[in-house]
């Protein structure tokens, strides 16, 4: 089962690269922001999987919880900031 967790963590990390392409090449700033949000949500899963791999789930779960809240606050703050600004659509 540990090998399966490692394979899943590597798979999600490969998905980071695909999202990073959208962050770098996105035509508008909203594409970039939603790509960053996807990376943030996948990072929560990678954190929990790392906790299972090192058998310290109790510590890494707290980290993932805090990271999820920070990710949400960051995305909403960026959405409010880019709203009605000229030249980003």
């Amino acid at each position, binding site marked *: 089962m540990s090998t*399966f967790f490692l394979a899943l963590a590597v798979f999600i990390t490969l998905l980071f690269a695909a999202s990073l392409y959208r962050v770098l090449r996105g035509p*508008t700033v909203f594409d970039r922001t939603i790509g960053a949000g996807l990376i943030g949500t996948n990072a929560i899963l990678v954190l929990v999987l790392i906790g299972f791999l090192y058998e310290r789930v109790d510590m890494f779960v707290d980290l993932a919880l805090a990271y999820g809240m920070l990710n949400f606050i960051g995305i909403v703050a960026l959405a409010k900031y880019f709203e009605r600004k000229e030249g980003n659509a």
Partner: protein
Amino acid sequence: MIAVIAAIFLFGGAVFLLVSCVGLLRLPDFYTRAHAVGKAETLGSMLVLIGLALYNGLTLSSAKLLLILVIIAVTNPTATHALTRAAMRSGLKIWRAKESNPA
């Protein structure tokens, strides 16, 4: 037995994560990409977290994993909606199929 069920959940979650990432890369404009991220990503994350909580058993860490699940289920669609509303208010055009190629 529990490990097999957890592996099925984890594999289904991985499939949905892959679908959301392919949608983010392949779809033509921001609104369709937000559609892919807002639904498939949420479901994939929830399936992966359910599988991990099943594998972990009945402990406090499993309760925290389910709390992460609830937080993702609430915040991920909310963040996608906020971004889409910001894009709509700042005048981003909706993608249409070409006139010469009606589908």
